[in-house]
């Protein structure tokens, strides 16, 4: 028995981005959805395609979308954070107290809001990464804890004493039409895309998300990375708190109640795998636009806000289910065409 041993050929090194990959990507599905929202919105309401309406509506979803950017990274690394809305509430309260009792100006208030958010995130990060507690347990706990602190201090009351320079943040427009929060969201989206898909940190993030132990054995500082991501997510919630508080001009303990689910919906609709290791920031940004403009279309048709969640629920399940169903049918089709022996 003789077998010739041919010299090993070089493995081909195809480009990492291919046309085929793009065509099969989640982003394409989302762009399709976005187009459908625009077509449907335009058909159902003459005011939908009004550029001022469109841009003005971005102020409402940009705060949620900011948190979705941070949460996407947390979920890619196999963790979860459901305390963002409570961090937002606590940051908002601390800014309110600082304004009410210390009479601080806009800049220190913003810094205090961001710092509170980051600090809360660092608490999550410490419990998860240093003590090794499961993220879901930690953030269920801090979700109650952070909002509980806010409620304990403020009770049923509210704080509406903010300097005008601060509330102006919520009413500023670039070129007189683009809300500041949307501008910041778009800029940060670019930063997050670069961070996630073009840096060493991003590579480590996907290594960690796909195999935490394998990443650790490969020399990735996994615990530090997880701590950083929770802190970053807290910081993003602090930033969302700045925009939301400024836009409302007041704060209450039940501010942003239940928003964490909207954030996670955005992340999952954007194609981030809930079991970690997979996802893109562009997907999350597109998902934010889809949900945001869908909300505008629904609102313009005088449908109450509560009904909107029916649409987002259907959208989420449908957009995940359709490719799976499609694959099954494609497989059956292939089987049927298989030559019989």
């Amino acid at each position, binding site marked *: 028995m003789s077998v010739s041993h041919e010299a*090993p050929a070089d493995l081909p*090194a195809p480009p990492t981005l291919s046309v085929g990959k793009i065509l099969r990507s989640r982003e394409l599905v989302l762009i399709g959805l976005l187009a459908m929202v625009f077509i449907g919105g335009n058909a159902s309401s003459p005011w939908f395609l009004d550029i001022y309406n469109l841009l003005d509506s971005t102020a409402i979803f940009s705060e949620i979308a900011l948190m979705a950017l941070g949460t996407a990274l947390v979920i890619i690394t196999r963790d979860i954070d459901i305390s963002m809305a409570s961090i937002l509430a606590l940051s908002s309260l601390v800014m309110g107290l600082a304004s009410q009792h210390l009479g601080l100006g806009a800049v220190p208030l913003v810094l205090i809001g961001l710092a509170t958010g980051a600090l809360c995130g660092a608490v999550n990060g410490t419990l998860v990464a240093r003590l090794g507690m499961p993220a879901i347990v930690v953030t269920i706990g801090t979700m109650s804890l952070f909002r509980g602190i806010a409620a304990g201090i403020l009770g049923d009351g509210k704080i509406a004493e903010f300097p005008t320079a601060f509330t102006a943040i919520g009413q500023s427009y670039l070129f007189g039409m683009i809300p500041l929060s949307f501008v910041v969201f778009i800029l940060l989206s670019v930063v997050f895309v670069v961070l996630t898909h073009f840096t060493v940190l991003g590579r480590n993030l996907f*290594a960690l998300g796909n195999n935490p132990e394998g990443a650790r054995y490969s020399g990735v500082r996994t615990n530090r990375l997880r701590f950083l991501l929770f802190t970053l997510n807290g910081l993003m919630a602090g930033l969302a708190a700045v925009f939301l508080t400024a836009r409302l001009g007041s704060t209450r303990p039940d501010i942003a109640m239940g928003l964490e689910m909207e954030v996670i919906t955005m992340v999952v609709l954007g194609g981030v795998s809930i079991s970690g290791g997979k996802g893109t920031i562009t997907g999350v940004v597109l998902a934010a636009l889809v949900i945001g403009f869908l909300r505008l279309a629904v609102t313009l048709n005088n449908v109450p806000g509560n009904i909107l969640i029916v649409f987002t629920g259907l959208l989420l399940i449908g957009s995940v289910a359709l490719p799976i169903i499609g694959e099954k049918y494609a497989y059956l089709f292939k089987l049927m065409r298989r030559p019989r022996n």
Partner: protein
Amino acid sequence: MAVHENTTPLVELEGINKIFGGIHALRDAHCRIHAGEVVALVGENGAGKSTLVKTMTGLYQPNSGTIRVKGQAVRLATAKAASEYGITAIHQETTLFEELSIVENIFMGHPRTKPSGLLDWAAMRSEAREHLERVNLDVEPTTLLKQLSLGQQHMVAIARALAEAADVVIMDEPTASLSSNEIEKLYVIIEKLRDLGKGILFISHKFDEVFRIADRYVVFRDGAFVGDGNIAEVTEHDLVKMMVGREVGTVFPKRAVEIGAPLLEVASLSNGIEFKDVSFTLHKREILGFYGLVGAGRSEVMRAIMALSPYPFTGQIRLDGVPANWKICGDAIDAGVVYVPEDRRNQGAILPLSIRDNIALPSMKRLARGIWPDKSAERRLAQEYGRVFEIRAASIEQPVEDLSGGNQQKVVLARWLATNPDVVIVDEPTRGIDVGAKSAVHEALAEMVEQDLSVLLVSSELPELMGMADRIIVMRLGEMVAEFTRDDFSAELIAAYATGARAPQPAREVA
């Protein structure tokens, strides 16, 4: 038992082809199993054994070919369909439920019910007792699975196959995690099953097992059928030759290199839980072997050195005379010390990621420019090591999980050697891989020391250690009990120290 030529086989595969993304995993494969025979399926990693098993059990659909059960062409669309045709597989890592009882495990998926539709526990318990008796397992059926030893759990898996009324039982490396005592018991049961008229497909890397238990053999190489016949008519040498396609030397490729100055010095390492007072010195270009039974603390010492242990330790580690104070594994890698772990799937690689990603990750610091990865440098590195290790894949962008076990192991070795280390710690590098891949690993070890590397080799295979190492340290229950230099290696003595049959050598002075 060549009398089966005229009877209809229980299962017959003919002309099976299976293609995964351009890789021909099975090529015109055929295989027959008759009632009352044990067929050994032999082949290297990547030869297509697992693919064949998955095709037979309905987990994979062949691209073409015919499967016949008792002469009838069938389509095994799902695992359930396969089990209804009487084909059951018992996998390497048993797919049982630790927290459930033996009865629940045996009847999972096909429970016995009363006419009312409720579960008939009494019937299941008594039936389970019968099956347990047939596999010589004398425990109560209500015992929780986690209370059993691995060997006993395996018997439960076989009992489960019996309860499914399997005609064909496929055993995928059933002895991998069993003690020699348990292996003997398994043989008895296999013989019993054979006498009951079952057909058994036995997959193993170990030739002594194949010759001990099988009646016939089937050899696969590179996804293709190479040959079959009666075990009584072949020698081990013939089988190896068919399997590898060339002559494999039984001589270890140990090369004469000049051993240099002390490089890695470890002094009185203890962590109070896993190991105590471990001291040794690894010299430049030396292969220092660590032998011991499972649980002797060898891997734990290595993980402590690499800052991968969850427990803090006392003692000193010096690399090239400089105290090493590594906080995380990455520090050790930066210093030129790498650890190739035993557990390939969980620790050795990040399976869903590409070959390029995997090879680049441990070298990231060197390859990247600051925070920016350099993809073309990664491609060059992946291609270079793909060539050196002869990794077989469609491209360097292929996920490692799509590769065969042997090629995965090559990626695992390649990704750490690509960091350009001075010291390589290899933990059981040949566990669960076949002869061909084994000799490739030994060749790689020999080449490492030729290229100025120093190696700590943790292994449970004494021949491998005696063949490759310059010195062997024996560990038992977390302590070093003996040390041998190449001139006075003795298998009997080393084993005696490892098992505790001999009292530890008096403590030597630490070099």
